[in-house]
């Protein structure tokens, strides 16, 4: 404790110090005129605060009949969808404040520009590489307590923290998809890439890798989850590049990753289906998280 524990005088008056701290302050006040003067000033303020709060205290109204009726009612599907949409939209403050939006826009612009200046055969590589990787990074950044102030999560209760994180990831990935869609439109206008072909290259891998990262982050931790997904995707891209370089010389053996560059509807459908299954598995994990054992109510 410092020589003059002035920071603790307010809590001494409020009675929120530990027994040891309280006794220590008491001893100090008996010997320090300066701190005693500070104490009297704070005591006067505290009396005013309590008096003002008492003015505002009114007889407590009974719990309303409307509230009683709501206690055992379940929201309709429309109400649940409205709540989900409202929750997701409310996360826009976090997305903007964290810098994710401008960083995403910058990467998508760079990827689109790179695709435009590369030769036709390589034009899809920037989108195939950058968009899914960006999805993994966004998902990992928004997952877990490292991505958010604990205070905000507590202040947002009773919404479950994982529900909030899911809402944020949904909004951030939705924004990424819109930006990537815009980039692909530009690419389709100024190159020989078709719009559907361009979208198919990045959409399914983005959804698949983001879902994988989300589920791994839930059961494990965001950083190793992102590392796993990025490592997997990096390995696939290297193998793809290797197979592509050999393709003109050697009819290579199966399995070939070249269909990733021009995915047919079946490959896109399988990836999206796998992504949806993982996303649902994630929600099931969140919804069925058990109450921690040994729960104790700490407060009054």
């Amino acid at each position, binding site marked *: 404790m410092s020589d003059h524990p002035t920071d603790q005088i307010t809590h001494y008056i409020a009675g929120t110090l530990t027994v040891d701290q309280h006794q220590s302050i008491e001893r100090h006040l008996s010997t320090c005129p300066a701190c005693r003067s500070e104490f009297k000033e704070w005591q006067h303020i505290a*009396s005013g605060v309590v008096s003002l709060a008492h003015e505002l205290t009114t007889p407590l109204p009974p719990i309303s009949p409307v509230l009683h009726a709501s206690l055992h009612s379940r929201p309709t599907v429309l109400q649940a969808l409205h709540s989900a949409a409202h929750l997701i939209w409310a996360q826009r403050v976090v997305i903007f404040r964290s810098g994710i939006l401008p960083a995403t826009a910058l990467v998508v612009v760079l990827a689109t520009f790179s695709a435009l200046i590369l030769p036709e055969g390589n034009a899809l590589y920037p989108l195939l590489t950058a968009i899914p990787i960006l999805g993994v990074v966004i998902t990992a950044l928004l997952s877990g307590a490292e991505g958010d102030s604990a205070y905000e999560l*507590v202040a947002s209760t009773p919404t479950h923290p994982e529900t909030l994180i899911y809402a944020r990831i949904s909004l951030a990935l939705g924004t990424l998809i819109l930006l990537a869609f815009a980039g692909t439109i530009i690419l389709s206008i100024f190159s020989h890439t078709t719009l559907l072909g361009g979208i198919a290259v990045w959409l399914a891998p983005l959804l698949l890798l983001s879902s994988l990262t989300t589920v791994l982050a839930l059961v494990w931790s965001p950083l190793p989850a992102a590392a796993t997904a990025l490592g997997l995707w990096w390995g696939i891209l290297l193998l793809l590049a290797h197979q592509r370089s050999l393709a003109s010389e050697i009819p290579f053996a199966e399995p070939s990753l070249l269909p990733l560059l021009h995915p047919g509807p079946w490959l896109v459908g399988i990836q999206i289906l796998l992504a949806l299954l993982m996303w649902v598995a994630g929600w099931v994990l969140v919804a069925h998280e058990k109450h921690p054992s040994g729960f104790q109510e700490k407060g009054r």
Partner: protein
Amino acid sequence: MLIRAIAQGDTRALEELYARQGPGILAYLISRLGERQLAEEVLQDVMLAVWRGAGRFRGESRVRTWMISIARHKAINIMQRQRYVQAPHIHKDLPDPAPGPSSLVEREDALAQVRDALRRLPEAQRETLELVFYHRLSGNEVAQVMGVSPGTVKSRLHRAKANLIQLLTSQGEPDE
């Protein structure tokens, strides 16, 4: 234990929690929103949120701190949604202090001056003082509720005191 009972669907536990914590939460909401009727409506919303969230309450904070956090979040939502502009630190429906013996009147006068000065404080500073002295939250709990660092709580307390001294000695308007 009330929270656990509420999580299991016990409405009487909710009513008991309401009786225990309701007055403090209501006073907090009236102070934030400035309107008693609106505060009472929001209090019902807070209790519904407690009912729905009791099963996920982890006990990492005190129940009161948790409920004040919910109340604060709902009050902020309402103020943002309705572009709510509170009259500058003036609360409606406040009763006049009753007259009494002279020594009591003198004491009440001094207290009334402090109350008036408190009403003129910036909202964040007044809220910090209320959370510390009326709701008796620790420094870390106040930081938790207001979404700031403990250091910010300390500096708000000190600025509040400096501003009150300035107001009580009639030396001008308070600093944020």
